[in-house]
């Protein structure tokens, strides 16, 4: 036990010696969460939209004003012929063009039916869908208004909406838990993935191997200091999301911290596993960063909902731990549900952690090659 403690102390000294790394270590998560909470959003705001208005009457003016004052769109330019559509879209000056045909207002009022085209730039499918949906909703609103003015018709069924969990529709609620999850796993895995390879590359591994420490002790000794650091990291992250984004913790804080500890332990032991199979630090960093970064960001449900992926991808996503942790932290922080709603996810994370630790111990080579 005393030996083990000595080893842990050595690891602590190694870490605190490199002051620059420590600063980066604590700076990265905070900086990244602040940046993304403010910057990133999947929604469309102020999208440039161009009008091709061949009718130019009172009604089309009203519609285009209504569209541009909705907050979703900004008037880009008025174009005057069909040939210009390709030009503005290709140059990227507008994300969509709304086309009113000849006699739009006349057709609508006396004929009862007029048609409008929304031509969106499909090279960005996400914006294109949102833009057409929002424009369609605004047009439908306009028809309802028109009906009550001209047709004197009141709608029998009226609806009242409640936006649960996130009444102000803040993008943070989606992005902050996602960034926390991604940044934690990558940072923890990066930290430990170089520790053992570093000793291998510099030759200090020999010293460790001839010492009476067992592989299990070496691995736990390597994990321990980082576990401590990462836990401080988690607390700073949570404080930041609380103070800067007023992201609530509606559920139990103790549960949240316990789940975070589990997730940190998982990420650290994953890093250790990488470092036991890598020969050089370059290789370990390559596996963690290039190999893991995109899949963890993209298959975790952080930006792209897993339900929308093609068949079979739920199985692929199931092997990436962030998926479960995102569910857990959204449940505890935003929905305020208890352990009973997340025990399955917790169990899976725990099983993965055990798997990584066992594999690392088994892969740990006590002989030099």
């Amino acid at each position, binding site marked *: 036990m005393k030996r083990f403690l000595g080893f842990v102390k050595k690891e602590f000294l190694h870490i605190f010696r*490199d002051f*620059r*790394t420590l600063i980066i*270590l604590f700076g*990265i998560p905070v900086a*990244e969460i602040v940046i993304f909470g403010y*910057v990133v959003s*999947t*929604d469309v705001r102020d*999208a*440039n939209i161009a009008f091709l208005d061949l009718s130019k009457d009172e009604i089309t003016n009203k519609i285009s004003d209504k569209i541009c004052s909705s907050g979703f769109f900004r008037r880009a330019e008025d174009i005057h012929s069909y040939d210009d559509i390709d030009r503005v879209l290709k140059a*990227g000056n507008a994300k969509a063009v709304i086309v009113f045909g000849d006699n739009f207002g006349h057709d*609508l009022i006396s004929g*009862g039916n007029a*048609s*409008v*085209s929304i*031509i*969106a*730039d*499909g*090279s*960005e*499918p*996400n914006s*294109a869908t*949102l833009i057409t*949906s929002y424009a*369609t*909703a605004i047009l439908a609103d306009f*028809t309802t208004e028109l*009906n009550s003015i*001209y*047709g004197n018709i009141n*709608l*029998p*069924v*009226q*609806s*009242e*909406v409640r936006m*649960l969990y996130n009444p102000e*529709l803040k993008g943070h*609620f989606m992005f902050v838990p996602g960034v926390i999850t991604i940044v934690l796993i990558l940072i923890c895995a990066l930290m430990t993935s*170089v520790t053992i390879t570093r000793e291998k590359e510099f030759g200090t591994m020999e010293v460790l191997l001839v010492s009476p420490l067992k592989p299990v002790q070496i691995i736990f000794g390597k994990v321990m200091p980082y576990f401590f650091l990462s836990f401080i990291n988690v607390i700073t992250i949570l404080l930041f999301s609380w103070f800067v984004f007023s992201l609530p913790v509606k559920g139990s804080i103790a549960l949240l911290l316990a789940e975070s500890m589990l997730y940190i332990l998982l990420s650290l032991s994953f890093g250790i596993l990488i470092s036991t199979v890598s020969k050089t*630090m*370059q290789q370990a*960093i*390559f596996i963690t*960063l290039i*190999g893991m*970064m*995109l899949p963890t*960001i*993209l298959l975790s449900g952080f*930006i792209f909902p897993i339900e*929308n992926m093609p068949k079979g*991808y739920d199985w692929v996503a199931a092997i990436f731990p962030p998926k479960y942790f995102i569910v857990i932290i959204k449940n505890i922080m935003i*929905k305020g*549900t208890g352990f009973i709603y997340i025990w399955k996810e917790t169990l899976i994370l725990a099983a993965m952690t055990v798997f990584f630790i066992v594999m690392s111990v088994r892969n740990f080579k006590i002989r030099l090659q």
Partner: protein
Amino acid sequence: MRTILYLIRKEFIQIFRNKFIGRAIFAVPIVQMLLLVPALTFELKKVNLCVIDRDMTPESRSLISQLSGSTFFRITHTTSSEKEALALMNNNKCDLILHLPGEFSKNIGKGEPAKVMVSVNAINAVTAQLSWAYLNGVLRDYNMNLVAGNAGMASASSVPRISIVNRYWYNEMLNYKYYMLPGILGILVTAIGFLLAGLNLVREKEIGTIEQINVTPVRKHHFIIAKMFPFLVIGLIDLAIGMVIGKIAFDIPFEGSIALLFLASSIFLIAVLGLALFFSTFSSSQQQFMFVAFFFLIIFILMSGIFTPFESMPVWAQKIDIINPVVHLMKINRMVMLKGSAFSDISREIYSLIIIAIAFTALAVVRYRKTA
């Protein structure tokens, strides 16, 4: 010139000496593109809807059947208890709850407004707004039918209606793969080049071999160019592999000029490598550079407009983003590949990349001290 060639040869040998890295720089992009590109879609599949029907009349049932017939909703549960519905939402079993109160049909009959309550899981604000808009659309149709039924068909046709035609240009079917492939490819090429080039230089520092170079008459810019060149070649090869995969596996259209795309990508790669070498002059260990790379790669990726629309970022962020080379590459890739834009359409992006490339490479050369 001879010196540079020898140095470049040395770099190539060093990169491919590690068998794992030598294979992974080509294998990882292939695997990740094949795996990730088909998975990424924002397309809203059916929204799971839970109905609380307290009315149980033909009127309420006709609204429900209209909802289940729409392409946007799947009615997964019907219940009469609000508590149960809320528990379902807590469990992620449904994302929308429609509450039809007991006096629903009575009010419609009396001509009074019949209120329905809709609760939306709004953690993802965007999907929440979309599904709410779709639900509203169905309610509107239901209303129109009711009005038409009450007043007889004659007056219903005189109710003004706007019919909307949606067209998506350059990508008729809104195929997300066309959009994602250039993005994923760009990220992979960036990440590999940035990480390996920087690590390479820092490693020489850490192991001490940089001193051996420093005592030779090799000029500073020779050394930096030799560090860049192999990764430029590797990046371009990765790009070519990626495009072949795009053509074969995903049938991506190439509207524009491939030469233009490679020209732009080469400038882009020089910019990225220049940045990497510049940052590596600040790091004394591979571990430090690894964290620096991690920090910037995540920012480059998430602020690039690949996964989230560029325009939805605040204006100040868009301004800062001018120095993010990935933003320019994304625009160029999409415009050239999907829209067939010519040089004049993307000249702004290309000039920005040239400025970034020159600035950071020059900074890297200046910051690199042979005496340190």
